[in-house]
């Protein structure tokens, strides 16, 4: 419709008639806004045998059973089997089965409240990213440069803050492989060219044995 007049009005619409409209207001100053790293709320929380009114286990902190101020009745006795869901025991040695073959003590300190680096430096669970960094230097570097781990908020820290995720939000420390999932729905545009290969794909291709196994690097 508009073409009737478009033809008439077309002359000279390469530049802005009002040049002040070309740009918005300039943004000046230093990038002063902060980048906050969000940790999961469950960091350092374990399901206890106690249930709440809905029947869900009540979460308690490590210090409830470990450490100097533990409640007596909860005190962890050395050797008592606990946290049996974590890792596997082979020939009497307990280790992780989904994160290399790491032993519990490669990360956890004897006090059970903290984790530690190879040189003995202890870290609070909240600083667990530095623990990951020790063995995953390239990913940690990429994370710091913004090309691993994602972000939300502002690209321009002059204009607003940014929020990022702790490594353990995406990678559970005991089983860090990024979880496969069902995708959001595909497109339904009517003019979409339907690919013969897509239609022919045999159902067996979708067996769970064929799930991705980390195609990074």
């Amino acid at each position, binding site marked *: 419709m508009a073409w009737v007049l478009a033809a008439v009005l077309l002359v000279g619409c390469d530049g802005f008639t009002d040049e002040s409209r070309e740009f918005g207001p300039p943004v000046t100053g230093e990038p002063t806004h902060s980048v906050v790293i969000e940790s999961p709320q469950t960091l350092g929380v374990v399901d206890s045998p106690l249930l709440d009114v809905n029947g869900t286990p009540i979460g308690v902190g490590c210090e409830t059973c470990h450490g100097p101020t533990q409640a007596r009745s909860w005190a962890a006795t050395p050797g008592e089997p606990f946290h049996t869901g974590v890792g596997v025991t082979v020939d009497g040695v307990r280790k992780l089965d989904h994160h290399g073959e790491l032993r519990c003590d490669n990360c956890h300190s004897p006090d059970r409240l903290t984790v530690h680096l190879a040189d003995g430096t202890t870290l609070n669970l909240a600083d667990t990213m530095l623990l990951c960094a020790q063995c995953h230097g390239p990913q940690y570097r990429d994370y710091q440069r913004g090309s691993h781990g*994602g972000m939300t908020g502002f690209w321009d820290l002059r204009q607003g803050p940014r929020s990022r995720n702790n490594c353990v939000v995406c990678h559970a420390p005991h089983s860090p492989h*990024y979880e*496969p999932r*069902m995708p959001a729905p595909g497109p339904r545009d009517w003019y979409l060219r339907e690919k013969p290969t897509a239609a022919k794909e045999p159902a067996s291709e*979708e067996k769970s044995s064929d799930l991705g196994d980390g195609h990074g690097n």
Partner: protein
Amino acid sequence: MAAGGATFGAAAVQQALAPLAELSGGFTLDEFLQRHYKQLSREDMEEVLDRLERKTLEEYDREVQIEDIRPIPGVQFGYALNLSLCIGCRKCVEACHKENNHDRATYNSYIRVLEMEKGGNDLEESSVTYDHVVPQRKKFYMPVQCHQCDNPPCVKACITKATWKEADGIVVVDYNWCIGCRYCISACPYEARRFNWTKPEIPAEEINPGQSYLTNRVRPVGVVEKCTFCAHRTRVGRLPACLEACPTGSRVFGNMLDPKSEIRWVLENKRVYILKAELGTLPRFFYFFDE
């Protein structure tokens, strides 16, 4: 330049065009006489925005705010996507669909994710309609959206100058100037443009009320639309909706002129790949791999 109305007298024009207005259904004279985006004064623009807000309220029963958000001086946008991390979950597709007020029935989105054979790079062999757990072991995933080319074939193909490249690198469409000839759609090697075959249907409560003229306002029927790197967000410093929605952290966005920006680091330190580089389109959208 004189507007059509100034020469003929608005009333006379109105009368002359009355049959046209009836034919096109809901097409008002103001719209008909609206000048090209770049020729509007600030006051003209205000009027246009008011009118569009009223129209959205009438037609979609939703109060929205439509702004005319302009580029930030000294900013050149660039976007990169890490193919080593992307798992093809289409969260970006979904986020775009909602952010940009796309038609619900067609589930339109500016992003399409191609599922491809590892080791292959034949786009024709890819699937966009895959529907199984991702990622599949033998596949990799490649989201494709507008590359905001610096040598844009779509802009060259446009016969009415309804689409152009802005100072920060974003290629935009004036939906009120587009005549729907779709030459730009055929010209785009990335299949990044979409056509509104029908009037977009979106329930009032689902309309994203934060809108801008050149980006996510609800488009009229019969015009072409495209990804603008969410210019209504990115021109006020925010990250694009597709980046925020990505659960894998595959997407990197920022100002290529800032030597400390994340996007610059990727371009300088990663193995960067340009889709259909041989066409000379000079994209601002890049793919990369971790080494």
